[in-house]
């Protein structure tokens, strides 16, 4: 388990994290969301033992992570930049990780590389961005660590590369019971394979929920009324938003799906369909309910 307890981290004149608390259970695929500059990378670096928190405690499986070589055997950080390996071939990169990670598996490495077919003797400086990211993910997964931290793992990848990388991560999670923490500002990507998401904003978590629970608890009903209804028309429902769009009325409400649909149908709309919400939409509506300007969040 990953645990942040009252962690504060400041950069000169601004506070990145302030009395930050978070728990990420083992085996979880955690998506860390936030705008640019929200502190996602900082959080991952603190988690990886790269940065030291100004106060508070960060533990992995109960052990402090900072300057703790033994605990760091359990974690591996794949940074958003892989330029430090430009002078190495994939084989050398593999040897690099194999040197430091006792559980590194050549078999796993070869298996993954057979999927993406990266050249092993070519310097990574000659790889495309996507290829470099793939190379890093292959090595990261083959290292066999319990925790894998990915900073903007999919940034700049084309859709097919993205898919490949995601598949590798998902397979690794299934095979090794790995805990993965991925940071991104792309909700769509996080939605596809994370089971828990958190939104970091101004040094604290605005949002930290199980994705299934999140999705199961907020719904969008698209219907057609002759007159745009008001929230007060549905007193039993926890309405987040009612809006008119393209001739339809969209009602965003929290609660059970069936109950929400039933209550709306009682008002006899012409059309009434339950529309699945994307993670993005869920966040937007949740934040607006918290009086946050959604344009400043995403």
């Amino acid at each position, binding site marked *: 388990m990953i645990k942040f307890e009252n962690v504060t981290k400041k950069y000169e004149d601004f506070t990145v994290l302030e009395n930050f608390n978070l728990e990420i259970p083992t085996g979880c695929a955690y998506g860390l969301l936030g705008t640019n500059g929200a502190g996602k990378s900082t959080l991952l670096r603190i988690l990886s033992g790269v940065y*030291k928190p100004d106060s508070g405690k960060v533990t992995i499986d109960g052990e402090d992570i900072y300057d703790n070589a033994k605990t760091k*055997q359990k974690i591996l950080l794949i940074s958003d930049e892989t330029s430090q390996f430009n002078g190495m071939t994939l084989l050398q990169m593999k040897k690099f990780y194999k040197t*430091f990670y006792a559980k590194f598996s050549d078999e796993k490495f070869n298996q993954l590389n057979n999927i993406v077919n990266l050249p092993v003797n070519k310097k990574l400086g000659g790889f495309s961005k996507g290829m470099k990211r793939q190379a890093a993910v292959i090595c990261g997964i083959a290292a066999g660590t319990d925790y894998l931290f990915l*900073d903007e793992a999919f940034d700049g990848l084309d859709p097919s590369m993205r898919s490949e990388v995601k598949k590798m991560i998902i397979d690794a999670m299934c095979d090794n019971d790995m805990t993965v923490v991925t940071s991104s500002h792309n909700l769509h990507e996080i939605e596809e394979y994370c089971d828990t998401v958190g939104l970091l904003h101004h040094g604290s978590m605005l949002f930290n929920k199980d994705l299934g629970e999140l999705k199961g608890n907020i719904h969008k009903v698209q219907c057609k009324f002759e007159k745009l209804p008001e929230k007060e028309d549905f007193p039993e429902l926890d309405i987040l938003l009612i809006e008119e769009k393209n001739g339809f009325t969209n009602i965003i409400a929290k609660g059970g799906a069936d109950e929400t649909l039933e209550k709306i149908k009682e008002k006899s709309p012409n059309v009434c369909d339950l529309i699945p919400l994307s993670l993005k939409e869920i966040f937007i509506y949740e934040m607006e309910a918290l009086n946050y300007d959604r344009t400043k969040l995403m």
Partner: protein
Amino acid sequence: MTTNGFGKYFGFKLKKRRAQLFVFAVLNFLTTILPAIIFKNMISGMREYANRNFDGEHSDVSYEFFIMIMFLSVAISVIMIIVTTARSLKLYYNRPAMDTLCSLPVSYSQRFWGDFLSGLFVNFITYIPFFGISLLITLSAKSDVEYLAGLKESIRFSNYEPLMYLLIKVIIMIIIVYLGVYVMTTFVSSACGKLSSSIVFSVILMVVLPGIFISYADFFYSFVIGTEYTKEIMSAIGMLPPFGPLVALKMDFEQNYFGAETLIDQPICLIINLVLTVSFAVGAYFIGKYRKAERVGQGFVYESVHQVLSLTLSVMLIGAFSFKYNSEEGVVGIFLIALFSFLVYGALELAQKKSFKGFGITVLKFVGTFAVCFAFLTAIKNTNAFNYSKKLPNESSVKEIVVSGEYFARETCYRADESIKGVFEEHKKLLDEPSLSTGSGYDGEGLTIQYILNSGKVFQRNYNAPKTDTGDPIRDFTRNVQKLKSSDMGSYGLMESKDFTNIRAKFDLRPTDYDENGKAVYPNFPQGNILPEKTEELAKLLRYDLENNYNANDGRYNSEIKTLGEVDFSRIDGEEFEAWDNYFNIYETYEKTVEFLKNPDNYGDSQPDVNSEKNYFVSCKTVDNSIRLVISENLTSNSDNANVKEFLKYIEMRENGKDELYSELFRIHDLNNQFVEYGIRKENEKAAIEAFIKCHNELSVQ
């Protein structure tokens, strides 16, 4: 610290720096083995030349050539160490590298020592065996060096032995310099977040450390009348890593040539240098440990380090420019000093901040620094370096004083308490002389006063003062001091020194034969060197003569004391030599002289032939018209001595026009260079010599 993570990280860094290992191997070869090879070849060539009786051409690779190669290699090595060390610490200035390396399962200590020791290994692993090889090569020339030094005909060959050991010491010293460069670069890089800052400020730190010392010492000593740099100051410079040892060697070399002291010759300075170097390593460890990794990419992780280095550089420049512009009075000079110093400081601040935001604070900091430095420098100037010129050693701590200069025929030594007191009084009077300035005191100019302390240290002052119509302060000092009772002559003291007897005497002797063109001819006498113990014996004999030839009225030794023979005892001065009248003429056959003088009866077959060789009298000049033989003074004072009486029987004034009857070397000169010839008739010469030897031996200090 477990070795597991350290070993892995160390191995990883070594692999990364493989290529550097080769580069440093080449540079270390050029710094160690190549100079040794060149030295060996030079010595071999000179021996070959000597064996050919100095006939024909010889390859004479000059010292300057291999010194140039060596220092060029050192310079390149220094640059390479700075750049490669800074670049290897990528995690300090490259964010992706920081993320990867700092997240590895390696502790900070393992990572730091892995970086540090892998760099040490790469930089120095080849230096050690190459130094061993260079040592073997250099020392393989030892026999040739000794052979050449034993030749009487060329003084310059004697320089090869100290040169040989100087070469070895410099090669050892260079690795200490490299170590300092490496450690200080690591220290600065630990405080920086950018590669360019690491490199630039590493160089700044290395320059500032000795530079600030030298620039303020230069300024200080420019106001101290009587001295420039003392040995203590040069030694202090030598303590400062990394370049202090080289700077101090250069300063000492200019004065003492191959007798210059290196850091290796000064154990305490070596220890302090290494302690400071280790301190920087420890500092690098802790600076790296507590640095905020998030500041990577910023010029300096610790702003205080940046400020200290930048301001210290400014302080150094203010001192250096003040020394340069010292002669310019007034506002212009001050303005120029401030301007040049501020340009550098301002540029460093702008490079760090990348904007003019807060530049007002920058200006204020500089103004404050400048004000403090300027006040200090003004105080030095106005107080004549805090009256350091007037500082003299404690009289009770002085063992002897040696004075030389324009009005001294030779170095004069004062040991008696009254004499020491007298010199102090005259020195203090001289210090009040307003026209007094720093002079050379050598080569017959000015005045040099050396206080040799009981501890062995030497406190020296060199003065000059212009002669005017109204006075000549140096001459006045000389006259007053010469009235004091002197002890031994400086050169005499030199003769007593082990260095002199062991080395100088061995190498100084040469025949002064001249060809028809007046050119000195140096025949090859490979076995002609004099054993040191023999020169000691001769020195003792001559000492007796000297002591008894002292004229208390003038405080001078007025005699030329000649033993018989033709070999000049010459002073070595680099590759030149000059016949120095203050030394004694020692004849080629003096070895026989010593034996004969000691034991004339048992000299056996080696007894010199008085007809073909010179006889063994000494002759002298007198200060007044009284005719006084050195021996005769003793003889006079010992007129009851039977041997003296016997000897005196054979001395008669030579009759004019009847030179053929007498031994022509027997002359008594007066100070006007007039002489009266006293001779011993040829038929009496042997008997006179025998009598003379007997009374001389009896009266000599053995």
